[in-house]
């Protein structure tokens, strides 16, 4: 899955996903990626979050919505992501997944579970032209 957040100069926030899902799935199965609030959620008043991982589990908790709402309540992006991922890990300690969270003004963070580390990519005004920064967060 690629899950992506885009914010333009005017603060218009959008988010989305594209995926071919999980390997060996039962035909007809769909994961979290096309489900609003699960694979992605965006609100220009707050920011956005996008998730990736074991979609059967993640879609039960709407982690992207949870993270955006946590930011609305005052958490920074990393803490919001940790809270959303932590909610899932409490019930599914062996699940694997990650989340990227961005505020409407361009502050970002990530959180993950069940992997050693989770990489994510960022391009913004602070990176020189044609460059993308790859960051990793330890799970």
């Amino acid at each position: 899955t690629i899950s992506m957040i885009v914010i333009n100069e005017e603060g218009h926030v959008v988010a989305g996903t594209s995926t071919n899902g999980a390997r060996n799935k039962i035909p007809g199965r769909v994961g979290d990626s096309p489900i609003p609030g699960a694979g992605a959620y965006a609100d220009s008043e707050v920011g956005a979050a996008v998730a990736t991982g074991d979609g059967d589990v993640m879609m039960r908790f709407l982690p992207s919505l949870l993270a955006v709402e946590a930011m609305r309540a005052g958490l920074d992006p990393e803490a919001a992501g940790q809270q959303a991922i932590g909610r899932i890990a409490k019930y599914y300690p062996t699940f694997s997944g990650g989340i990227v969270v961005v505020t409407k003004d361009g502050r970002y963070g990530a959180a993950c579970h069940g992997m050693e580390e989770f990489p994510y990519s960022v391009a913004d005004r602070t990176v020189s032209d044609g460059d993308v920064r790859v960051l990793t967060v330890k799970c």
Partner: protein
Amino acid sequence: NGGLPLVATTWRFTNATLRAYQSLTVGEFDPIEALVEGCSVCEREQCDGTVGFGGSPDENGETTLDAMLMDGKTMDIGAVAALRDVKHAAEVAKYVLRNTKHTLLVGSQATEFAVMMGFKKESLQTDASRGMWSAWKNNHCQPNFWKNVIPSPSMSCGPYEPVSANTIHHNADSSLDNPTDRSSFEFGQYNHD
């Protein structure tokens, strides 16, 4: 802390991130167009085998695609799920967003919608996805996502039928099902939603 405009993407999909960013800054696309441009790069490049055609075959060896676009200003959404035989899922989701009052179209009907919008119908199978499927089949269909069925899904391929509720209740073994254990599914960098 970044500065606007900004694009952030899961995993190391830098070509997709850059394309979306340049669509915003150089192309002056609107954010939804930039998002579609970025995701479409991964669909073409088959990023890590987890996006686009020829990856993650299902139990029948078919690849299906899911995509969603959400506009955080209008709260409008366009999405497709289990899209069959069309390569450009993010683009099709854009047509759901722009040309319908719905949120999510699925399966073969989503394919019919895509064809109506001018997309080409073509198989999403590749030699690589056929190979992945054959390897899984030759490995007694392991791992899989069945439980409480016979024959035992931990040892055999289907077709399966459900075991009776009574048997599930009284048989502690019942396909060794621990509902919270996800460790056998091999989710990670090359297999994920």
